[in-house]
């Protein structure tokens, strides 16, 4: 199982702050996960295709779309940070 978190505008667009997902393969890339979620979830498709920047963290570290995602990982999707 994968635990997926959503924050800020992405959380609002997804209408939830987290979800669990069974990975169809033992390992896939972040890019592959994004495609999978876009096929499964209309809200995620809207977020992904909105043209707004979407950032990804795996196990609380920022990664790019080539990064691997494995069973048990914590994945998070969010917009660019605006703290400080």
């Amino acid at each position, binding site marked *: 199982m994968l635990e997926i978190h959503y924050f800020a*505008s992405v959380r609002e667009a997804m209408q939830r702050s987290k979800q669990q997902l069974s990975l169809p393969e033992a390992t896939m890339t972040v890019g592959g996960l994004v495609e999978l979620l876009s096929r499964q979830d209309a809200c995620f498709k809207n977020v992904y295709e909105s043209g707004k920047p979407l950032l990804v*963290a795996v196990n609380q570290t920022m990664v790019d779309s080539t990064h691997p995602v494995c069973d048990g990982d914590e994945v998070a999707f*969010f*917009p*660019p*940070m*605006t*703290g*400080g």
Partner: protein
Amino acid sequence: MSWSQITVQESDFNLSEQYELLRQKAGDAGAIVLFTGLVREVYSMEPDRKCQPATVQGLTLEHYPGMTEKCLQEIAQKANSRWPLLATRIIHRIGMLVPSDQIVLVGTASAHRSAAFDAAQFLMDYLKTRAPFWKKQQTLKGSHWVESRQSDSDTIKRWQLHD
């Protein structure tokens, strides 16, 4: 070994207490820099957005618990490896704030002023674009998420770190 403390909290902070803590922990410091970020009432969008400035009634700060602390620790470590710091302190507030409220505190202590100034500026630049905080503004016209400023990402480039 340099002293460093990071806190993410809903409650307000007392600048004076933090200053005395830095003085005490830093030992023989010659320079202390404190930065505080405050909620502004008039929020101007980037010039190219052609929007009227909005009057802010409130600000809600969301964060990614766990990753936030991890990021701030990393940022503090980066600053410590780059400058001879005696002490660093970061406090970032979350939750609901109103104009003139304190949002963030960054404090640095060093033997000489240039290290303290540069490290404080570095910590703020990195914190703004690398730590998972997000601001939502409440105005008379409704609520909206603050969008990241290109200038903040550009600011990081001056530190010439590729990480």
